[in-house]
């Protein structure tokens, strides 16, 4: 991060619809490929894939849904528990989900390569990339808007 978060700092989201729309768009955009590729790999791998691989995909999808929930709560127009957290606490919550998605996708990518599923491996690699984008964007958002 370009700027360290000071203890107790709070997120001050930009006022004005256009600015808020932009940051919300930037954070929601990487979640679309995370969930979409996960569902696509589930469809394409189907019943032929090992049970552990399919179970891993389901867990990955659940973590992706958690990323979406965090994003929606952060930008909710109604008060949510996330709004009471400090910036450091928000950062930790978001990083934990992003890192879990990246780690799970990495494990599944290796399994897909071992199982000779190159397309699934490539799609899982893309999920890791999108999780990294999401992590970077929340870090940038907090660096810019925490006071």
């Amino acid at each position, binding site marked *: 991060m370009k700027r360290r978060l000071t203890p107790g700092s709070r997120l001050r989201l930009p006022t004005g619809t256009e600015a808020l729309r932009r940051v*919300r768009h930037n954070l*929601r955009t990487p*979640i*679309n490929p*995370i969930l979409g*590729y996960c*569902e696509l790999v589930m*469809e394409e791998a189907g019943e032929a894939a090992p049970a552990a691989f399919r179970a891993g995909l389901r867990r990955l999808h659940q973590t992706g849904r958690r990323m979406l929930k965090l994003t929606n709560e952060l930008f909710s127009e109604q008060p949510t528990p996330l709004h009471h957290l400090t910036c450091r606490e928000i950062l930790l919550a978001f990083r934990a989900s992003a890192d879990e998605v990246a780690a799970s996708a990495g494990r599944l990518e290796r399994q897909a390569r071992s199982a000779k599923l190159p397309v699934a491996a490539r799609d899982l690699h893309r999920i890791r990339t*999108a999780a990294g984008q999401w992590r970077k964007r929340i870090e940038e958002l907090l660096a810019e808007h925490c006071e």
Partner: protein
Amino acid sequence: MPKILLVEDNEMNRDMLSRRLMRRGFEVALALDGAEGVALCEQTQPDLVIMDLGLPVMDGWEATRRIKAAPATRHIPVIALTAHAMTGEEERAREAGCDDFESKPVEFERLLAKLRALLPPSPAPPPAP
């Protein structure tokens, strides 16, 4: 086979969504920005357009307005796609001429239901392999 024009600038979203649509039996043409979307819509006459709204060169609102203003393409249904998902977005998309609206991340089955509702009647696409 129904032909969909997908206008989407994000490479991962374009790849993922086009593959999912093709698995469900749709023919998919791709455009990377709003201007290309308008041009391809006129040239290829798709059965339906899925239009991302936040696009470079020409945004999706303007591209939809042009598609709906042109006699050759105004009959083609347009579904807006956006990650903004804030209050008023759907109204804004409909004002531009979009026939329906879907927020990202895409709930794929819901999107398919919207496609089926807007596509002209034709033989059902083959089931997913």
